[in-house]
């Protein structure tokens, strides 16, 4: 009877393993996220995206971070290809063919949302009971985001970072961003959008060291369906936001002018 019982237990464990449910044998328990006085997860801290980790710490730390994701059962971030309508895709290809020379950032214009989240420099979140302040080293930009569920104000006009309001959905901070101008790219080269863009960001501090960032870009004028992207932000203890000044000695402007006089120098060879 005892042997019989052990056999059933073994089968049950095998089924659980095969079904993909995380088990204590496969995953390390991650240190849990801290909580604020109001019981919500506290997002406060200095955070960096993968690109920042690569530049600031090197490939070995990127590999170590990815290994800890695997050990702790954290799914890899996935970013879909942008689902552009034909006309918008044509625009994107035009910018790609020009190897990004038209990048608004090269002219020191502020990156929009979500591109600023993916930039290779740290940002800081300071969470308070009814609002959260996001301080980006990139462009020295900031966002002050009400988190009490209030609607967007009525006196907004189109801007680079748009207007952000947030609410808590369980342990996830959901930020609704609207009122964008059209002078930014969404994530990469040529990722254009219209003023109809609505961005929904979801910040989930799924462990002490990580925030899962899920962003949906909805713009019926350029996309056939909403575009989803993900990233894992990693806590960077001991780091601080430093100064970022862009226009001081931006030699790109003169160099770009020179390059533009002869497109064949920088354009991708046509197939």
């Amino acid at each position, binding site marked *: 009877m005892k042997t019989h019982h052990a056999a059933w237990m073994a089968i049950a464990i095998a089924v659980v*393993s*095969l079904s*993909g449910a*995380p088990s204590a*044998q*496969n995953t390390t328990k991650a240190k849990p996220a801290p909580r604020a006085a109001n019981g919500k997860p506290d997002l406060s801290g200095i955070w960096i995206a*993968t*690109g920042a980790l*690569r*530049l*600031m710490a090197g490939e070995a730390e990127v590999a170590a971070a*990815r290994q800890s*994701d*695997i050990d702790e059962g954290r*799914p*890899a*971030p*996935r*970013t879909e*290809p942008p689902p552009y309508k034909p006309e918008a895709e044509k625009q994107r290809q035009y*910018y*790609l*063919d*020009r*190897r*990004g*020379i038209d*990048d608004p*950032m*090269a002219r*020191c214009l502020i990156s929009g949302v979500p591109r600023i989240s*993916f*930039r*290779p*420099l740290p940002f800081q979140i300071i969470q308070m009971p009814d609002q959260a302040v996001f301080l980006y*080293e990139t462009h020295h930009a900031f966002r002050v985001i009400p988190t009490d569920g209030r609607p967007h104000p009525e006196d907004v006009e189109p801007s680079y970072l748009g207007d952000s309001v947030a609410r808590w959905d369980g342990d996830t901070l959901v930020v609704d961003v609207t009122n964008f101008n059209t002078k930014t790219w969404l*994530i*990469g*080269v*040529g990722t254009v959008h219209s003023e109809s863009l609505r961005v929904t960001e979801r910040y989930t501090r799924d462990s002490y060291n990580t925030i899962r960032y899920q962003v949906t870009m909805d713009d019926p004028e350029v996309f056939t369906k909403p575009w989803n992207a*993900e990233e894992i932000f990693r806590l960077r203890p001991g780091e601080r936001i*430093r*100064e*970022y*000044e*862009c*226009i*001081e*000695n*931006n*030699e*790109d402007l003169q*160099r*770009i002018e*020179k*390059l533009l006089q*002869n497109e064949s*120098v*920088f354009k*991708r060879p046509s197939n």
Partner: protein
Amino acid sequence: MTLMRTLLCSVYRSGFTLLLGLLLGTAALSAHHSFAAQYDADKPITLSGTVVRIEWTNPHFHFYVDVKDDKGAVTEWAFEGYPPNMLVRQGWKKDVSLKPGMAVTVQGWRARVEPHLIAAREVTFADGSKLTAGPPAGTGGQ
């Protein structure tokens, strides 16, 4: 390694590849502009010479090095790298790490137009120590 772990690794790697491909293809590694428009990743170069001057400025620092060719003719080459905020994170110190008169070897990639402009990646100093000076070659737009 259990099946679960193998699967998770595999899913993780495919997601990583997708993301890496997307971001590399969008010049995410450049500090603030498109690397690929200005510089040619297919033209790596390593030069040795004497530091002439340094511009510790944003959004990129520049430094200039006199390089002597085989016939003894000296040409001043310009190097572009990280902004000061990133240089400090790589261990640089203003007016200490790099000074006029220092002998250096610099590895990087040549510009598409300017004949003597380079995107600097790494500087090797006379004592053999090295400092990262700029991002890896991006392929922005490709």
